[in-house]
């Protein structure tokens, strides 16, 4: 990857406590939501983070947004550990990293006018005076394709796609460097989805934004990402530039995911790889590959040894024993 690194995640771990094992046991039960994840975001590029629900991709995003404390590891923003930020530095970080979430209905405060909602970050950070803020709100509404007289309306008057545009306008209000997009189009209709994705890509070009794009939808990720990481049960199993991962997927899980993408051609035979069973309980993973129970390639060795994420070809990292052996 070329370019300037803006955010670096080193061995990030986030465990959630599920209470004590029993009344008389002092040992706390832990769920490993994110268990040792490394990646870097480069300026002006989009990093796609893919995986099924519950694999820890949103938790990773929330750790970067400092909504959760982290269990282990570090997150470096422009070389500085974000969890050491206090006071002014903390506010500076808040200004530079913004987010758009999945649920366009839960993202807007139903009792706040759209104008106030978009203005709020600027108000909190004391940027501009009241008149300039109003002007900027009108401008931002224009940027995301809404009209400036929408500012005085309440959220219930808007559709899902419009709401997501409002969220994007708010996220842009402070001129951030990095925007975490946590499934921003998953709740939208297919037709609206393309509009929002194109808007996001246009804005990226215009404002030089860096995106962390979290999604379970590979076709969407393929459309927008420069670099893709596939997560399975709290770990990254494959990471490569976008075209490489879609042309030459190596990890069996990535293969299975890709075969699930629907092709708009009924003549084309689909050899979908159907995975058996559910993802393993993340509490019971002691040893071995975490994908072994559902893998069509698993051997006895996979039961015993946990694969490392290793570079099998330039820029292409995979965590699979059998792939590593073949190379």
């Amino acid at each position: 990857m070329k370019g300037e690194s803006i955010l670096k995640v080193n061995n990030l771990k986030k465990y959630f406590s599920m209470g004590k094992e029993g009344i008389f046991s002092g040992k706390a039960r832990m769920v490993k939501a994110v268990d040792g994840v490394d990646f870097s975001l480069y300026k002006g590029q989009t990093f796609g983070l893919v995986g099924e629900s519950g694999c820890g991709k949103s938790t990773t995003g929330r750790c970067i947004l400092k909504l959760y404390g982290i269990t282990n590891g570090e997150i470096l923003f422009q070389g500085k550990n974000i969890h050491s930020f206090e006071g002014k530095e903390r506010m500076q970080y808040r200004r530079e990293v913004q987010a758009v979430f999945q649920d366009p209905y839960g993202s807007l405060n139903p009792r706040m006018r759209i104008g106030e909602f978009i203005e709020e970050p600027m108000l909190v950070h004391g940027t501009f005076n009241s008149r300039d803020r109003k002007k900027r709100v009108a401008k931002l509404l224009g940027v995301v394709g809404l009209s400036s007289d929408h500012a005085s309306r309440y959220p219930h008057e808007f559709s899902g796609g419009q709401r997501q545009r409002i969220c994007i306008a708010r996220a842009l209000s402070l001129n951030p460097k990095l925007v975490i997009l946590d499934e921003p189009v998953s709740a939208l209709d297919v037709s609206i989805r393309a509009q929002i994705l194109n808007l996001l890509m246009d804005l990226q070009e215009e404002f030089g934004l860096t995106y962390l794009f979290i999604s379970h939808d590979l076709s969407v990720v393929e459309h927008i990402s420069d670099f893709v990481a596939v997560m399975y049960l709290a770990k990254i199993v494959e990471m490569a530039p976008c075209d490489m991962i879609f042309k030459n997927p190596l990890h069996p899980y990535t293969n299975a995911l890709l075969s699930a993408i629907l092709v708009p051609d009924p003549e084309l035979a689909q050899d979908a790889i159907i995975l058996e069973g559910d993802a393993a309980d993340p509490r019971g993973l002691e040893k071995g590959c975490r994908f072994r129970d559902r893998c069509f390639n698993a051997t006895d060795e996979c039961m015993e040894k946990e694969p490392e994420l290793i570079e099998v070809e330039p820029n292409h990292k995979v965590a699979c024993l059998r792939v590593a052996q073949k190379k």
Partner: protein
Amino acid sequence: MAKSSKLWAQIKQAPVGGLTILFLFIVVALFAKFIAPHSPIDQDITHALSPPFFLEGGTWNYLLGTDELGRDILSRIIFGARISLVVGFIAVAISGSIGVWFGLISGYFGGKVDSVIMRLVDIQLSMPYILIALALIGALGPSLRNIIIVIGITSWVTYARVARGDVLGIKENEFVDLAKIAGCSTYRILVRHIFPGVVNSQIVLGTLMFGRVIIFEAALSFLGLGVQPPTPSWGTMLADGRQYLTYAWWLATFPGFAIMLVVLGTNLVGDWLRDMLDPKQRAAVRGKR
């Protein structure tokens, strides 16, 4: 257009009776001096225990009769409305504003803070209201101000519980996370993002509690812990009238009716507000049309 007709549908369902009762009592309390035919404390021993006008021996001068000291019952009820409504409004305002804050803090922060506040609530709920009131009034001495304080302190728990429940639901919304990401202070998140979602149920609760507070004040006055004579209070009038019940029933009956009417009025209005402010109910109203 659609919006205004929706609003109209809700207003059409307004409890005209309840609103009229409340409005009448408020007007009467405000203009007691001009409306009351007599002074509430002037005694007229020669006309003591005179019956209401529609009974034999009743006069038009004393419409609802007089008490054992010859004081006009109607005038005492009119002046008593002041006490009841003042106690109702102020006590609800005090307990509501204490309770909503505890509820917000308890629900938003969770964990230990939540446990401590909710255990306090449990402890208070485990003690009978009247016992706490007896102890506090015993310590502070009976007066109108102290009655308001006591009711304010004893009834905050209901508001706190309801507010906490609302907060638990609201804080899961992504707009709360977005507010944190924007850098909002905790105070701002509580006041601008969470409080507006809590306020509806607090208003409804307030109206329903208003009736209960009036009964509570009457009960305290009935026990002699409330407003002290000769100031007219509905509760005291009930207590005083009790001993004459067998041969001068109007002493206790009319203040009793007054309490019943006000409480009925507030409950009707409270029920209506609850339906109107609850989005689910509102949808049901829309569906019916």
